[in-house]
């Protein structure tokens, strides 16, 4: 039942809406605006350790950004970041979805097992990343011991520059799967049984049912999960830092770790670090916006 709203009522509705929204807007302004504005400014300043003490940080325009972009580290790092993000997201999502699908049919112990999957998130990253670092050790690690059973010679997961990126991706996937699984599970639960029953009556097989019914109806939740996953994965720092510290020889550095190293490494060049960090945020904004637009187009089609 629709009824025309008088302009006054419409305005009152807007006030109400904003009354509900105001606390969060203030919250956003107070907590997020300041750090990000500070970081943006820092990117334009020659900000060193001395600046903290003396307060002197001259504006140098885009010099920091130029230095970052023309550095020999820049493009390889960008490439590594891209590989890290794409590989992490793809596997986290696929495995998370498979697990969610598996658990969607209730069976004995399913609730308990589902909760246990969130256990990795209970651990501080220093603990989980260090444990993985051990498991991936070339000589003392259990993973190589396991592979050795099949005759595979020890892999230098964290010490071979060609493989270190894969190692941190593996750890990141492990950490990201629970997030994907829980949210996708929620999404799966909201698809009405009746649709599945109808498909079964029509004689559709499991694969067809999945592609024609489940996946399309899951799209809204998929959008949220992938978008947030993209944003979070771009930010990932601790996992890489504790496992390989971006090494060996910078072979697992991403924009996030590199930004940190510029600021807090021996150089203490906070201006450069802020510039690199801002580029990261810009990348996130751009890709986020592109993704949302692509989804809107598909929804409209």
């Amino acid at each position: 039942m629709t009824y025309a709203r008088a302009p006054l009522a419409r305005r009152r509705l807007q006030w109400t809406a904003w009354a509900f929204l105001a606390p969060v807007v203030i919250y956003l302004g107070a907590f997020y605006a300041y750090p990000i504005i500070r970081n943006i400014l820092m990117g334009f300043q020659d900000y060193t350790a001395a600046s903290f003490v003396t307060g002197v940080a001259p504006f140098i325009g885009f010099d920091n950004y130029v230095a970052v972009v023309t550095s020999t580290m820049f493009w390889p790092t960008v490439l590594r970041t891209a590989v890290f993000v794409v590989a992490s997201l793809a596997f986290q999502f696929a495995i998370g979805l498979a697990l969610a699908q598996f658990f969607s049919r209730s069976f004995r112990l399913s609730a308990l097992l589902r909760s246990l999957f969130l256990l990795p998130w209970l651990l501080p990253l220093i603990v989980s990343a260090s444990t993985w670092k051990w498991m991936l050790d070339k000589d003392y690690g259990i993973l190589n011991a396991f592979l050795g059973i099949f005759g595979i010679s020890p892999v230098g997961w964290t010490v071979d520059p060609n493989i270190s990126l894969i190692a941190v991706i593996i750890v990141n996937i492990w950490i990201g799967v629970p997030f994907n699984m829980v949210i996708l599970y929620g999404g799966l639960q909201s698809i009405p049984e009746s649709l599945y029953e109808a498909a079964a009556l029509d004689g559709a097989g499991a694969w067809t049912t999945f592609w024609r019914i489940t996946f399309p109806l899951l799209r809204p939740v998929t959008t949220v999960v992938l978008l947030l996953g993209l944003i979070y994965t771009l930010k990932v720092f601790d996992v890489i830092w504790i496992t390989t510290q971006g090494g060996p020889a910078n072979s697992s550095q991403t924009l996030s770790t590199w930004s940190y190293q510029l600021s807090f490494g021996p150089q203490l060049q906070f201006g450069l670090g802020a510039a690199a960090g801002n580029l990261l945020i810009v990348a996130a904004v751009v890709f986020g916006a592109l993704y949302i637009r692509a989804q809107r187009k598909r929804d409209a089609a």
Partner: protein
Amino acid sequence: MTVKYSKAAGAGLLALAVATTLGLAGCAGGTPSEGGASTALTLWDPYPQFEADSPWSTTLDSCAKDAGVTITREGMDTSSLTSKLLLAAQQKNAPDIAVIDNPLVASVADTGLLASMDDVGIDTSDILPNILAAGNVEGKAFGVPVGSNTLALFYNKTILDEAGITPPTNWDELKADVAAVQAAGHQGIGFSAVGTEEGSFQFLPFFWGSGADLSELDSPEAVEALSLWTDFVSSGGASASVLNSTQADINDQFLAGDLAFQVNGSWQLAGLDAGDVDYGVVPVPGIDGGAAPAPLGGEFFTLPVNADADRQAKAAAVVTCMTDPANAVNWIAGLTYVLPEADAQAEQAKQSPELAAFVDAVAAAKGRTSDLGTEYPRYSEQLWTALQEAVSGAKTPEQALTDAQAAVDAG
């Protein structure tokens, strides 16, 4: 359902209120008292493993009492300490005493944060010059050493006896020994080639031991030093994991009993004594014999500049008390560092034979920043990058070091 929710909400709000009250109460008492019965000083140190009952803490408290103040001590990990020190400096609430790692003293002093020892009236005349030099900027001392440690070559006596070899005195012997141990079925040598200051620290005895100088990273001597390491790794004498292992990790490997040699520091002595390995210590050999100059490690007491002269004077008094050899012996054992005064060192050597080897090493040791001053961090970063590239096989030692020198020149 609605009832349940509001009950939960009510309980929650109550909890939040309690927490807020507690927090505010804590806040009110948290700020250091200006005036009041006695001044409360703050000290930050990188020894989070020391609890309130450790010799470090108790000596600190008694020194504070002697100076007529109370002292609040905060232990945190080194990297957090540097970050927080800078942040605090910005907010103008830096601690009264900060214990920082020696290669950073020059850089931190350069920011203007630290008071020079002359300005606060701390007497540094007894301290051995090579140890004090690490905290010097343009000839002025900006910190007092807590103590020093340095690197030496530990060896597993059991394995060496089994292989019928003696500890090496030069590089040829070292290579031969490692090969012999490998042939006997054990792990050869452990060192840390991580991509941090620790890696550079570990490499320096070999770098300097070859005759190379930090100002010229790509000299032929330097290449030879780096080749020593890369050859160990490629021949299996050292595990590829050295790229990712800290000195703590290497020590754990040594403690496991299968590693014949490790390059590690005096601070490991206490842990090694508690373990099962029958170990010995010799200086890291130079390329043609003799002891290689080893880098000085250890932290410095520093005093951030304080407008309140009285506060600063009290802080200086506490530092003088802590570094007085008579007091220092209380807490230095926990760190197994070498004290920075000649007499005190002699006393330490008498008390502990293993430490005696380190006392000699420290006497011959070099500060990392002594030559390059505030430039050292830049050089060090390129050095460990070169280490990582060469040891991992990504580049040849020559190429890695040439690139390192080029980066330093460019930067």
